[in-house]
């Protein structure tokens, strides 16, 4: 089955990011396809490479990046939500005259249309978060 996923909460504050990750890895293990993971609301904070959790804790951001690297999962951060919360890729940095970017490897910034398209293209859409 083809799944699309929305993550609505930031990492560490809320279990949604963990649950989404656990669902995605379990679905892949069972041979399902993940069409896209779309990060919205505070969920965009899953996509900053500046995250530095204590060493004895899981690294939620790196975990996503590794998943994208290993399985080619499309990780999309909503541009409007990202702009509000300071998640920036090189293009956005240039466009908005910022002095740097912080997008993590494997993530890309794009529009809300990517969420709707993912819903349409997938057999099931699941949202994680409040």
């Amino acid at each position, binding site marked *: 089955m083809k799944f699309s996923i*929305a993550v*609505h909460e930031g990492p560490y504050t809320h279990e949604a990011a963990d649950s989404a990750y656990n669902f995605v890895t379990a679905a892949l293990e069972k041979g399902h396809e993940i069409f896209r993971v779309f990060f*919205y*609301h505070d969920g965009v904070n899953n996509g900053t490479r500046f995250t530095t959790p204590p060493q004895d804790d899981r690294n939620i951001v790196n975990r996503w990046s590794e998943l994208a690297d290993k399985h080619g999962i499309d990780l999309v951060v909503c541009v*409007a*939500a990202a702009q*509000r919360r300071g998640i920036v890729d090189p293009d956005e940095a240039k466009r908005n005259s910022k002095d740097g970017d912080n997008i993590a490897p494997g993530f890309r910034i794009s*529009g*809300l*249309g990517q*969420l*709707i*398209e993912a*819903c*349409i*293209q997938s*057999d099931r*859409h699941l*949202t994680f978060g*409040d």
Partner: protein
Amino acid sequence: MTDEMMEEGGTVKKLMYVCRTAPYGTIYALEALEVVLIGAAFEQDVCLVFTDDGVFEIMKGQKTDDIGMKNFSPTYRALEMYDVEKLYVEKEAMEQRGLGEDDFNVDVEVKSAAEIQALMEEMDIVLNY
């Protein structure tokens, strides 16, 4: 799923937005509205359900000056121009909050929780905000 709805001209799915949060306590309502507006371009079979504190999103006479936030409630009136015309309010949620049909700034159809549940069963996609 609705394979019978797959047509050559593209897929039309039944899509329900469930609006269940008050407009200013969190950003969910505002960002939900952004999804609805962008989503309209995909010409799906869309409806909105206002339930729980979400019924406050479309209340008339919102004034936000004192909290320093933008009053985005007039934007709901623009949904009609985007062909988003099916707006439902859950009767129980409305009544529990002392509201009536005349308290809203858009035309809505009031439906019972049971009716909304039945409608939800028919959906291909349900997005919660």
